């Protein structure tokens, strides 16, 4: 075997978490290689010029909660990452009106007041409570999930730290936290607000990436995520990467390379190689073998444990838990190249609203009906959509005067009745354009190019099992020490030397990067321990 095929660590999958993991390991002095199946790194965070002159953030399209310590540790700004704030969310309404929430507090208050004076007040109270709760929950994001059933010393320390931190919560806030963990987004918001478009738009954050409707229990929790950034010193953590979401991946890859990591594209890992319960390398689809005592998977839990490994190598209960892990795809993506700026009939002409997001979520019933369509194996004929126009704030995304529009669409069943084909993909795309045209009359005539991704496309093109954008739904029973499975939520796996670092591990979800970083810190801890014990962790020991 060639010496060049031996590494300290192999990372399977060059998505943002895999790259972050590689960068941290390389920074610690390890000889690292990232193996990416596609011709470019980034996984679901890629920018591609599919139509000449127009750049699409093909799948993920905003930067949500990317951990600021990662930006600092890896000096990502120096490697080309610039995040531009997503300042507003406007919900156009069928009656020609709109509901807007803006960067400026007074402006938001005026807009809410038009719809409901009570909601305008409640909104501030809600924000205060959520800020407090986000602060209470925030330490969870930064710790390796402890094992509460058979805790080790460090687990106990973590539990104690979390307990101390949570002690600051008074009764009212504790109750609110419990409700957030158990209720549906719609029910929770009903306790606070009366304006339907406000409730619908806020509830949308709870349904994204799940095969659930706003009235399904367990959807309230993600409301908290939107307040998480406020306490990170990030100020509007939600934003666009200049140059599209691919720049997130490229800047991390550049940082990883600056620390000596090797990145191989066009390298499909066929199998993870094990011997006597230890990992010892991977084999590529062309038969090439690479060896390492540490292998890290950034791909989703299903592919990691049911695809890359032989499930026989796993304990039965663990393999069963992974099979049961809920990873139902529910969303699609439509990217448009436009010959002119879209004109929303609720706010005609240009203006700062075009730099923000548009949410097609006029009412809770609208969202729930969109879910109904998909529940029985279809796609929403009038879907929920989250729309941004990146070229409005980052003009480099399209030729001067022209625009790109990114449309996140929910719902579309992965298991579409009769299966997805080209005609159904286009019908899905038509449903999106037709629905949006009701609010943007000049849309249809200005489309120069359209890219439609169904959940199946996301599985086939991006490797996301069932097209689930989070590598598994972000619902309470799949979070923290349940992610992806009890007892194996600390980035380790039943195969020694084999680790997981993708979005299917805690905390997961969005372009956050915490999974990749925490996994790297755990790996380095294990390596130190092995060295400290005076053993070289030879396979077969």
């Amino acid at each position, binding site marked *: 075997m060639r010496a060049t095929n031996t590494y300290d660590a192999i990372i399977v999958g060059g998505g943002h978490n895999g790259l972050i993991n590689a960068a941290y390991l390389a920074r610690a002095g390890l000889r690292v290689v990232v193996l990416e199946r596609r011709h470019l790194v980034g996984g679901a965070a890629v920018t591609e010029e599919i139509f000449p002159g127009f750049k699409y953030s093909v799948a993920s399209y905003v930067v949500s909660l990317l951990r600021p310590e990662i930006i600092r540790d890896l000096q990502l*700004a120096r490697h080309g990452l610039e*995040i531009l704030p997503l300042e507003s969310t406007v919900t156009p309404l069928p009656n020609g009106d709109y509901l807007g929430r803006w960067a400026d507090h007074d402006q938001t208050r005026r807009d809410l007041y038009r719809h409901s004076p009570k909601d305008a007040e409640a909104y501030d109270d809600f924000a205060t409570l959520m800020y407090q709760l986000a602060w209470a929950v925030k330490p969870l994001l930064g710790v390796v999930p402890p094992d509460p059933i058979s805790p080790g010393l460090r687990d106990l320390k973590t539990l104690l730290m979390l307990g101390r931190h949570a002690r*600051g919560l008074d009764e009212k806030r504790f109750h609110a936290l419990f409700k957030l963990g158990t209720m549906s987004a719609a029910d929770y918001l009903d306790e606070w607000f009366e304006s339907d478009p406000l409730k619908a738009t806020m509830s949308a954050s709870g349904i994204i990436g799940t095969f659930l409707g706003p009235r399904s229990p367990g959807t309230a929790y993600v409301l908290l995520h939107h307040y998480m950034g406020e306490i990170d010193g990030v100020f509007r953590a939600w934003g666009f990467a*200049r140059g599209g979401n691919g720049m997130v991946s490229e800047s991390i890859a550049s940082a990883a390379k600056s620390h000596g990591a090797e990145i191989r594209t066009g390298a499909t890992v066929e199998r993870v190689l094990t011997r006597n319960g230890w990992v010892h390398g991977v084999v590529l689809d062309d038969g090439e073998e690479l060896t390492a005592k540490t292998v890290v998977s950034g791909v989703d839990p299903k592919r990691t444990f049911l695809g890359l490994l032989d499930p026989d190598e796993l304990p039965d209960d663990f393999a069963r838990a992974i099979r049961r892990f809920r990873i139902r795809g529910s969303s699609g993506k439509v990217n448009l190249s436009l010959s002119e700026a879209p004109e929303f009939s609720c706010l005609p002409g240009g203006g700062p609203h075009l730099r923000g997001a548009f949410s097609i979520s006029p009412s809770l019933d609208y969202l729930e009906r969109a879910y109904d369509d998909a529940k029985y194996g279809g796609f929403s004929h009038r879907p929920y959509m989250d729309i941004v126009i990146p070229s409005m704030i980052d*003009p480099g995304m399209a030729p001067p005067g022209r625009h790109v529009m990114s449309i996140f669409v929910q719902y579309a069943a992965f298991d579409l009745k009769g299966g997805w084909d080209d005609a159904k993909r286009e019908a899905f795309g038509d449903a999106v354009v037709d629905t949006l045209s009701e609010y943007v009359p000049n849309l249809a005539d200005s489309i120069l190019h359209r890219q439609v991704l169904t959940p199946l496309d996301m599985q086939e093109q991006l490797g996301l099992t069932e097209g689930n954008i989070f590598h598994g739904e972000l619902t309470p029973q799949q979070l923290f020490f349940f992610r992806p499975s009890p007892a194996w939520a600390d980035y380790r796996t039943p195969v020694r030397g084999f680790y997981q670092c993708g979005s299917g591990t805690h905390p997961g979800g969005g372009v956050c990067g915490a999974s990749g970083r925490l996994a790297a810190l755990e790996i380095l801890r294990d390596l130190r321990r092995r060295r400290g014990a005076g053993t070289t962790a030879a396979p077969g020991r």
Partner: protein
Amino acid sequence: MRVPSAVRGTPFHERTGPLCQAGNWRRWAGHFAASSYEPTHEHEYQAIRSACALIDVSPLYKYRLSGPGAAALANRVVTRDVDRQDVGRVYYTPWCDAAGKVRDDGTLHRLGASDFRLTSAEPTLTWLHENARGLDVNIEEETERVAALALQGPRSRDLLRRITDGDVAELRYFGVMSARIAGIAAEISRTGYTGDLGYEIWVRAADAIPLWDALTAAGGPFGLAPAGMLALDMARLEAGLLLVDVDFIPAHRAIIEGQKSSPYELGLGWTVSLEASNFVGRAALRAERARPPAWRFRGIALDWESLEAAYATVGLPPQLPGTTLRDSVPLYAGGRQVGYATSRGWSPTLKTYLGLAHLEAESAVVGTALEIEVTVEHRRRRAGATVAKAPFFDPERKRATP
């Protein structure tokens, strides 16, 4: 006779006035300057870093030096060697009093062999005349006569190329050229106060409105936005650029000796050409260079974890400034105060809380661990900070010529 107004609009006010939705004005050298145009300044900052922004910098003091003695006068005043300045080049430079203490800083544009424009933050006419004795030079104040707009940001070149007859694309960093912009005679310099790709455009005040209109008419596709002083202040902090009256006190305004700084103490040693002709303060600076300066000017980066810990004592996450703070706060090393930070703020691009600081030389080595005073819920606490190199943000595009 009418009483003159204390504050007046710049030549662009007819356009900037109605644009300022925030109603948030401040004074700059007797003129109205928008703090922000929009209700919040975030987008204006992002326009500087990601698209392009228009900043009205007309209140700068501007002087034209011409005639056979112009170069000699410039050489007598500024610390840099004007003999080496080619026509079409701009020097950033401080100038000092006889004791070698900085009076002011600005840019010196060499528009012709004997034709210079000097910009300054402070009125400088008398100082120039005092130093012009015996020289055949014409000194003309053009502060009111010349309007100035900074066009800053990564798309500024693309925009300018569209409406300029000159070869703007070839204009190098700190170069200056004459050109017509939509038919208006202008000097365009590759300069600015943002640490990004950018230009400053100098036109007759009478041409200000047509210039503004031409730029804004063509700017839409490039994400052009007017930006105010709050956004500019964030960008210049990331770029590590000094601000007069904040990061240093002009020597001639100092009440006590301790308020004065030499160029070496402000990190401007690179601008001091001791071999140049006898500029004001040279002897003092030569003597100072023989022994290392007692103070250094450096960047500092606050340590996030310790800032979190300081706030956690009261159960709060860190409360960060949304704008650049300009009050001085003490810095400590080994339990002793070793300096003070004069500008501080959160960098949205670097996700770091940054500052510019005066430090005793022995504590000024990059990487030195410091403590900075932070006020947490009305109580003084300390957080960790590290001496860092400025500029903090220094993109290639700032200097690059395509």
